[in-house]
């Protein structure tokens, strides 16, 4: 029943997507307005198909409808409700349902938002591109990764295993994938409008204005998704780190970098009318990279922490990536003559030059990461060498680029558009420069040592000074509205980046890590913190068996790192216990659990300063970019639209 119903919804969505795509193309080419008006109906049908399929699968998981193979794979009567809800995206087929649901949501949002202009070919083509993308994902759900395949329940089958243990031991699992998908899938909207502008030849700024908020929205969720993923890794995986330069992590960073570059360079186009080719390329690259990232996650080419989602749809995604990326390049080449714009950047000391440098750096960073991720594969293909490109490569290549980005983050907001005088710059630089020096001084006073960290702290303080200067001035003039709008919201994002950078550098540079063999009652110290092994204990329910030890930190509160055995999966995972504060994190994880009650243990204690600022910084980045889409002044949009029409 569920199986047939779910597959029915998938079929509905697939058909509606196909008809929308081809019917839309026909309507647009033949110019039949009455057909164009029907495009909206297809969006609604796709929405019904995607939502219906998702809901049916959730119902099947909660009903433990084991006639559906996917439910046999991820369902279990012992999974707690929240993780059972999240179980739908714990494996491939269901996560594609989530993808499709998000895509249908964006499609409907675009349809509703632009409902007043049903005959606009730009909108028509954008919808067609989105229908095309949704046809692809429905095709996957319809054929190679059909989540509703059912079969007779095998003899002796009583209960499913539930999701992978790593996907049911922290609440962040319920948020990281949906956030990431909102980001990944959200970039479909600017991509669709970019392609539509190429097809219609309306390559002016109209499509940029139409999609600016959508892009910021997608970027916000991609940022939050990545940071939540890092946080999950830190809280769950027990290695005390948050970023492993794992291929799949890198894959999520690539579209983030090109998307960030776009959010900056788009302002050059709006101010100066140049860089059209570049901007449209960045949008296409960002969308292509989201597909590329999905390919890396799903193809099984890499060993990765995300390897539980391997599948046979790798070749499909690769084909789609090839189609999207080559198609975009072809379209851009085809419209090359329209995209050209006169004018160039005249001064080195201008906002546009700073943004261009910023784009160069983000591009370089994306390239460094792409090479580092794919080169080992290349080496193994060519001569069978097993090569690992790990942290040292990314650290040493990324560090100088990161420093330059921090510097530009401070400098760019100070430089005006067009020409500027050295005198003006000097005057504006005063406050940030002092902030940088104060930051350096404070770091040294608090015991920070080492060349690179001190450079980082100085540059970060400089960037913070620059952002704060802008915010102070703006709040002084406009009161609470001073934190709204692109520029001010952007500065709050910058402050978030500064916090994140400081947290990153401090927690990486001053990490202290030690393993202790301890008997019960013993006490050890690390970095002035004392740890006393008070005793051990066991707990179990139908799902897990847990052996935890009680560690008293600084004669105060007790923390309980544990080893958790997931009965169904037969997998044992360490569960760390973390004491966080604004100053430092103390991370406890068991290297060896006690074999009997209160037996000897091996305890790993990690002290890392300022880790929490990574998460707070991420929050600021999300908050800032939401503020950035709220208008700074009333009626600013009207003015922008008039401006776009006249240009």
């Amino acid at each position, binding site marked *: 029943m569920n199986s047939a119903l779910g597959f029915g919804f998938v079929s509905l969505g697939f058909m509606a997507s196909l008809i929308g795509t081809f019917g839309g193309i026909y309507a647009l080419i033949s110019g039949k307005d009455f057909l164009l008006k029907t495009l909206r109906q297809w969006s609604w049908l796709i929405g019904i198909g995607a939502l219906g399929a998702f809901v049916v699968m959730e119902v099947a998981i909660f009903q433990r409808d084991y006639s559906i193979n996917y439910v046999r794979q991820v369902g279990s009567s012992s999974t707690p409700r929240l993780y059972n809800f999240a179980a739908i995206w714990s494996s491939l087929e269901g996560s594609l349902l989530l993808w499709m649901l998000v895509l249908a949501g964006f499609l409907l949002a675009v349809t509703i938002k632009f409902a007043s202009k049903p005959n606009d070919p730009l909108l028509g083509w954008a919808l067609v591109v989105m229908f095309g993308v949704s046809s692809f994902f429905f095709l996957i759900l319809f054929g190679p990764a059909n989540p509703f395949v059912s079969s007779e329940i095998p003899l002796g089958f009583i209960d499913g*295993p539930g999701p992978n243990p790593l996907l049911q031991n922290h609440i962040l699992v319920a948020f990281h994938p949906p956030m990431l998908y909102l980001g990944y899938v959200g970039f479909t909207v600017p991509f669709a409008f970019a392609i539509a502008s190429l097809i219609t030849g309306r390559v002016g700024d109209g499509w940029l204005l139409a999609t600016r908020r959508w892009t910021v929205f997608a970027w916000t969720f991609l940022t939050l998704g990545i940071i939540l993923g890092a946080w999950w890794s830190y809280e769950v995986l027990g290695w005390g780190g948050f970023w492993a330069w794992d291929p799949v992590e890198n894959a999520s960073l690539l579209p983030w970098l090109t998307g960030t570059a776009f959010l900056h360079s788009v302002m050059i186009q709006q101010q100066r009318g140049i860089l059209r080719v*570049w901007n449209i390329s960045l949008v296409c690259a960002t969308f292509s990279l989201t597909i590329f990232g999905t390919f890396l996650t799903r193809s099984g080419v890499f060993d990765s922490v995300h390897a539980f989602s*391997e599948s046979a749809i790798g070749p499909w995604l690769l084909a789609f990536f090839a189609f999207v990326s*080559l198609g975009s390049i072809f379209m851009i080449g085809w419209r090359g*003559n329209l995209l050209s714009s006169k004018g160039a950047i005249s001064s080195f000391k201008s906002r546009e030059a700073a943004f261009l440098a910023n784009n160069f750096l983000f591009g370089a960073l994306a390239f460094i990461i792409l090479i580092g991720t794919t080169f080992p594969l290349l080496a193994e293909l060519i001569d069978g060498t097993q090569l690992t490109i790990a942290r040292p490569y990314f650290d040493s290549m990324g560090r100088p680029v990161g420093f330059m980005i921090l510097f530009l983050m401070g400098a760019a907001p100070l430089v005006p558009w067009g020409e500027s005088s050295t005198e003006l710059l000097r005057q504006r630089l005063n406050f940030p420069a002092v902030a940088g020096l104060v930051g350096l001084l404070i770091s040294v006073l608090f015991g920070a040592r080492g060349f690179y960290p001190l450079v980082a702290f100085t540059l970060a303080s400089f960037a913070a000074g620059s952002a704060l200067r802008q915010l102070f001035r703006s709040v002084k003039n406009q009161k609470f509205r001073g934190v709204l709008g692109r520029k001010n919201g952007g500065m709050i994002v910058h402050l978030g980046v500064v916090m994140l950078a400081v947290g990153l550098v401090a927690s990486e540079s001053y990490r202290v890590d030690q393993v202790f063999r301890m008997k019960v009652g013993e006490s050890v110290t690390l970095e002035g913190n004392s740890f006393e092994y008070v005793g051990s204990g066991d707990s179990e329910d139908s799902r897990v068996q847990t052996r935890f030890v009680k560690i008293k930190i600084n004669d105060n509160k007790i923390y309980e790192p544990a080893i958790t055995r997931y009965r169904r999966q*037969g*997998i044992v995972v360490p569960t760390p216990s973390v004491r966080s504060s604004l100053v430092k994190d103390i991370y406890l994880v068991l290297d060896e659990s006690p074999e009997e009650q209160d037996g000897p243990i091996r305890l790993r204690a990690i002290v890392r300063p300022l880790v929490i600022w990574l998460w707070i910084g991420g929050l600021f980045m999300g908050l800032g970019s939401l503020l950035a889409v709220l208008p700074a002044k009333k009626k600013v949009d009207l003015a922008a639209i008039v401006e776009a029409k006249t240009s």
Partner: protein
Amino acid sequence: MNEESSFENALELNSSVSKIATVCGLVLVVFIGFLIAATLIFGSKESESRLLGKQAPTIAGVSLDGNEVSNSDPGTWQVVNFFALWCPGCIAEHPELVKFSNWAEENNKAEIVAVVFDSPNLSGIQEFFNSNGGDWPVLDNPSIASDFGVGKIPETFLVSPDGVVARRIQGEVVAADLIEFIESYSDDKIS
């Protein structure tokens, strides 16, 4: 300043756009070709095991029905199957293992050793075998799974008569496939 304006010009000149697009397109084609090759070669799961072509890890212990099991001197093919009753694939593949086991007994070519991959309820296993067929020994020793590097079940290893891991199968097995592999492997050796 000059550098940046020339960069700008390069991006914006009419004819250059098409030229640059062509170059980028070609680079991308090469990159995609490389990804296709990588998918074909590394995307298949069987090639992954570090054990392939190496001596199989020791299997020793007492089976659930109380017999000594060891692979120290097999003299015949051993099919090492990791399974559990909570694993849908393992239950689905059971009839195939029974089929294979019948063939193996008739031809005296192979024996199966099953290893429980974590099951809270071992008594159900005997019942499962009684009702579904299969009389091969079942071991309950978690260290075997970690020696073989098993992460996901069902997973099956084919160990040749000289004790070398010849094949790793992740996912459900098919009897005909196992039989064909063993037959052709023996032929290769003889020729």
